[in-house]
């Protein structure tokens, strides 16, 4: 189970990383969602005990680690907030550049720098 959970975390992280490398900003956002899934799953998997839900009256046998659940919940919500914000920024990028791809942004950046470097550094 340990190996399997780690492998799934790795797949989530890898797929997310792959998407984050794309030039399409919307894909990048989806990639970030996957990476946040990887982190959340790691949190859940890092529980020290596994078992039934920890709700009183306590069931017989082991209960699952409530602390990692609480942390995962918090992380989920935070992940929700930042993803929403990231989407908002991505949309603003579209609004201001009429483009949502990194390559275009990189070109603009390079052009700007080239303009600046026309000037000699004289002191």
């Amino acid at each position, binding site marked *: 189970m340990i190996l399997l959970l780690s492998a799934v975390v790795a797949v989530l992280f890898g797929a997310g990383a792959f998407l984050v490398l794309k030039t399409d900003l919307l894909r990048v956002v989806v990639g970030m969602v996957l990476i946040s899934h990887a982190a959340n799953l790691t949190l859940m998997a890092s529980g020290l005990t596994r078992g039934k*839900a920890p*709700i009183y009256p306590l069931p017989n046998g082991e209960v699952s680690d409530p602390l990692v659940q609480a942390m995962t*919940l918090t992380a989920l*919500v935070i992940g929700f907030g930042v993803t929403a914000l990231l989407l*908002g920024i991505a*949309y603003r990028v579209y*609004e201001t550049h009429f483009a949502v791809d990194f390559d275009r942004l990189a070109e603009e950046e390079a052009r700007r720098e080239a303009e600046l470097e026309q000037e000699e550094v004289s002191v």
Partner: protein
Amino acid sequence: MTSLLTQVVVRLLLAPTIVIAAAVLAKGYSSVGDGFSAGVIAALGVIAVYLVLGAEQADRLLPVRLAPVGAIAGLLITLVVTFSSVVRGEPLLTHAPPPGADVIHLGTLELITAVAFDVGVFLLVFGAVVGILRTVALARSEAGS
């Protein structure tokens, strides 16, 4: 666009959604769910109305303009609960009543400050989620005009 049936169903569904949300909120302390889930469930109900009826109608039908107020009020309530214990000279986030003391029950609802805390969470999440989606919707109509 959307059929009359969907419009009616959406309106009808809103009430039970809110009830479910309230139940999740109230029972959070003894079973699955908490203020956050309740807030999102309630927000989803509102969003459904939005999706079906469109922003303008929904604005007319529901008091969603108040979403930001709800969000701010929710955060404020939670903050007050968190820090009020400090004024009493206890560490922050010390809930009342203290461990071991009796809890006043109002039906199944327990009157403890933790519940107030959760109500704050609920209000904030509800307000913020509705607010976010509404901002996106309004940005669209503003961009269109």
